[in-house]
């Protein structure tokens, strides 16, 4: 029977890419010299499953490559290898290489063998060299010799394998005999069974495996096929594979399962080859490094953004609520069946309950879409890590409030603008280390990403302790570029906002990181498109903070309904400043056409809704008989002339574009209580429309 493996490829690739993300973020969290067993374990696990999967599907290049990485990390995990920045960088590079390989396989392209070989070689080198560097640092007599070193010796005449399966090996469907048969194909195999573990006959469970074996496999054989034979049982056994050399006395190398640990304690050179799978006991190995246990819960990082993973508790709440709703509904229908006026109070109560349940249900459904902003924040570790290396700066990234929950749409859309801001901070904000020392700052700069809730908004701040914005230079630059009049008087805030103008860049040198002059204006536009705004605070020499305010969700909006003729429109409540009656004497006309309204010594342009939307049957075209809704959008204020204000309500935003088209001046549509459709106004779009 043959199974078409191709059907599982998609799942394998998805899992593998996810695994790579876990590896990447795990590696970035490793600090040199301080191994964190939980973090290394999670990296190791990810690598291991990629290796296993790629082996199964026959992507041998990938499994071979991952194996080399895995060996390196295994040594780190057991504390037999110091974690150095160089090693972490190397592993990060390998993660990239692995990603390229996976991508190539997925797309059916050829793997760039040269690049792979390069990385593999670098990994091999690292494995050989780190032994000596560790020796320098530690006083331990521990003498690790890497597998690769042995392998390259090429006088291996065979392998000694001590294989002691855990008792449940057989239950997982693995048969040692089959594995031995596989090995015997490779060379001359001698098998010695060890009966010492077999219990008394009456205690014997026939389904458990109590035997262990010592195997001697002779011949000029690579290690890889041997590992492969044991690949499936790695987690279910204690396995020690050691090469045999010409001069080695075979009798010395027949340790039982218990001897492994003692060999380890005795710091026998062969201890390096103990592949501790499953139950690894780092504490029993004498190492100079301290293993730090990390609190659980931190590991649930890095979730993919293509689908939402919802907490089961959220779903339980939802189910409860739907239950309540059904009860209310049946109660109401009972009242309705034999209704008379005496039941009026009951009906009112029932309706109130229905309203409450509906609202709660709505809230919890919205809650499902909320996901921690962490999924955006976590990718910055890599960015900062890479860029600071590239720029030769020392930069720490601090993440605060990464568990703050935001709507999925916001999470997806905020990523690019944030990347831009962080790059700017790294490139222009933080100074070179020597400059920093010269002005009395710590050599290492800090970039902070912070997220928190405030009101119905989420605030995301990107701050750095770099050199800050130079107001005079901003001003000079703006004048030079012709964006500002020479004698314009600007507040600090207005000056900082110059950087959001199109075509403005103060970078003296254009780098490939930032400073192309198409930056901040795009960032601001993107954020405003999300219904948010962006602010900048900066102090020369101390640093800058850019804060982004965004609505928590893009699906629901607080709106004010207005009437124009027979039609109803929704104005986002956030953009309304005030609404007032128009007094004739406050209206001024520019060139007898453009109408303005004088409000607290400010001339507001009046936009007549019925004119720009060509609404028929308006109640009045006389300004003094309608109302003026003063709105603000993208820094522009204006007055909307409408017939009447109707009421405030929360509206669910529906896309007009899904089945229809984009309409200038309209950001979307919603469904009103009576089932009809009302358009939601887009203030900046309206202003543009009115100016045409």
């Amino acid at each position, binding site marked *: 029977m043959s199974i078409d493996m191709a059907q599982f490829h998609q799942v394998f690739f998805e899992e593998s890419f996810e695994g790579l993300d876990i590896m990447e973020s795990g590696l970035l969290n490793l600090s040199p010299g301080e191994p964190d067993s939980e973090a290394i374990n999670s990296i190791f696990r990810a690598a291991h499953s990629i290796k296993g999967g790629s082996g199964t599907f026959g992507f041998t290049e990938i499994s071979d490559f991952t194996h080399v990485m895995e060996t390196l990390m295994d040594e780190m995990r057991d504390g037999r290898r110091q974690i150095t920045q160089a090693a972490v960088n190397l592993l990060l590079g390998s993660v990239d290489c692995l990603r390229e390989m996976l991508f190539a396989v997925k797309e059916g392209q050829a793997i760039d063998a040269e690049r792979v070989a390069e990385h593999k070689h670098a990994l091999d080198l690292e494995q050989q060299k780190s032994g000596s560097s560790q020796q320098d640092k530690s006083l331990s007599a521990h003498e690790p010799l890497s597998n690769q070193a042995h392998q390259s010796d090429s006088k291996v005449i065979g392998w000694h394998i001590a294989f002691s399966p855990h008792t449940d090996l057989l239950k997982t469907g693995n048969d040692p005999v089959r594995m031995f048969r596989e090995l015997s194909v490779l060379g001359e195999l001698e098998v010695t069974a060890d009966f010492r573990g077999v219990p008394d006959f009456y205690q014997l469970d026939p389904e458990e495996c109590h035997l262990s074996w010592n195997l001697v496999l002779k011949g000029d054989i690579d290690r890889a096929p041997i590992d492969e034979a044991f690949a499936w049982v790695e987690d279910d056994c204690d396995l020690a594979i050691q090469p045999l050399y010409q001069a080695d006395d075979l009798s010395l190398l027949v340790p039982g399962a218990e001897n492994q640990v003692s060999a380890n304690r005795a710091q026998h050179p062969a201890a390096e080859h103990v592949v501790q799978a499953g139950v690894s006991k780092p504490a029993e190995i004498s190492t100079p490094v301290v293993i730090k246990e990390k609190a659980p819960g931190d590991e649930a990082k890095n979730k993919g953004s293509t689908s939402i993973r919802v907490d089961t508790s959220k779903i339980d709440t939802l189910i409860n609520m739907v239950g309540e709703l059904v009860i209310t509904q049946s109660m109401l229908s009972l009242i309705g069946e034999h209704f008379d006026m005496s039941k009026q109070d009951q009906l009112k109560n029932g309706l109130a309950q229905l309203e409450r349940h509906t609202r709660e249900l709505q809230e919890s459904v919205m809650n499902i879409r909320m996901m921690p902003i962490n999924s955006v924040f976590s990718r910055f570790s890599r960015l900062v890590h890479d860029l600071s290396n590239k720029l030769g700066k020392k930069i720490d990234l601090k993440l605060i409030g990464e568990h703050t929950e935001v709507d999925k749409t916001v999470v997806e859309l905020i990523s690019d603008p944030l990347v831009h801001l962080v790059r700017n901070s790294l490139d222009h904000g933080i100074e070179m280390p020597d400059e920093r020392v010269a002005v009395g700052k710590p050599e290492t700069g800090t970039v902070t990403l912070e997220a928190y809730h405030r009101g119905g908004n989420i605030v995301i701040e990107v701050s750095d302790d770099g050199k800050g914005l130079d107001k005079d230079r901003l001003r000079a630059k703006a004048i030079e570029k012709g964006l500002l009049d020479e004698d314009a008087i600007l507040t600090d805030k207005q000056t900082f906002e110059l950087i959001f103008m199109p075509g403005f860049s103060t970078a003296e040198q254009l780098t490939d990181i930032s400073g192309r002059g198409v930056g901040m204006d795009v960032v601001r536009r993107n954020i405003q498109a999300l219904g948010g705004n962006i602010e900048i605070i900066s102090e020369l020499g101390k640093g800058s903070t850019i804060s982004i305010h965004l609505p928590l969700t893009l699906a629901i909006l607080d709106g004010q309904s207005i009437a124009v003729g027979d*039609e109803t429109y929704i104005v986002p409540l956030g953009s309304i400043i005030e609404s007032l009656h128009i007094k004739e004497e406050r209206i001024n006309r520019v060139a007898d056409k453009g109408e303005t309204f004088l409000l607290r010594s400010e001339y507001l342009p009046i936009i007549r809704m019925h004119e*720009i*939307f*060509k*609404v028929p049957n308006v109640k009045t075209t006389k300004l003094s008989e309608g109302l003026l809704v003063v709105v603000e959008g993208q820094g522009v204020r204006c007055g909307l002339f409408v017939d009447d204000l109707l009421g405030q309500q929360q509206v669910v935003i*529906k*896309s*007009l574009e*899904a*089945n*229809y*088209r*984009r*309409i*200038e*001046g*309209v950001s979307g*549509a919603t*469904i009103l209580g009576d*089932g*009809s*459709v*009302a*358009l939601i106004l887009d203030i900046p779009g309206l202003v543009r*429309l009115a100016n045409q």
Partner: protein
Amino acid sequence: MSQVAENNEIERAEKKRLASSSQFLSFTLGNEEYGVDILSVQEIRSWEPVSRIPNVPSYEKGVVNLRGAIVPIIDLRERFHLGHGHYSALTVVMVLQAMIGNKTRVMGVVVDAVSNVIDVDKKSVQSAPNFGSKVSTEYINGLITVNGRMVMLLDVNKLLKLDGVDDDEN
């Protein structure tokens, strides 16, 4: 045994018929009769007031709420320059769906009346004659005769394309 063979025979004949023919829903606009592929018709509704959309061509009447989705309604009479129709409760809206680009678009189309489901043998479909610029035949896939009347078969995918929205996609 023979029963099974017979069934197979019928099935095969049915399949053959299906491969060479398809069903169209015919409807009238004034004195003219049109047809659309029945598989693209999602439902048929009666006319209900729409919410007007500002600054769009007049044949785009507005949008309605179709079970939570915002669906535009276009008037085919106006689109084909057949003059204004009078909307009443008997006016029919056909809700059509089509793949435009890689998205499914749902749209309501106002017609005078839906008449019949017609079986169309693909071989009997004639291509639309060319009138030059005098009469636009861009939405017409072909012509067919049913009971001595000409029915124009419309291409729903082209019909649901909107001016100014989908032009740049082509």
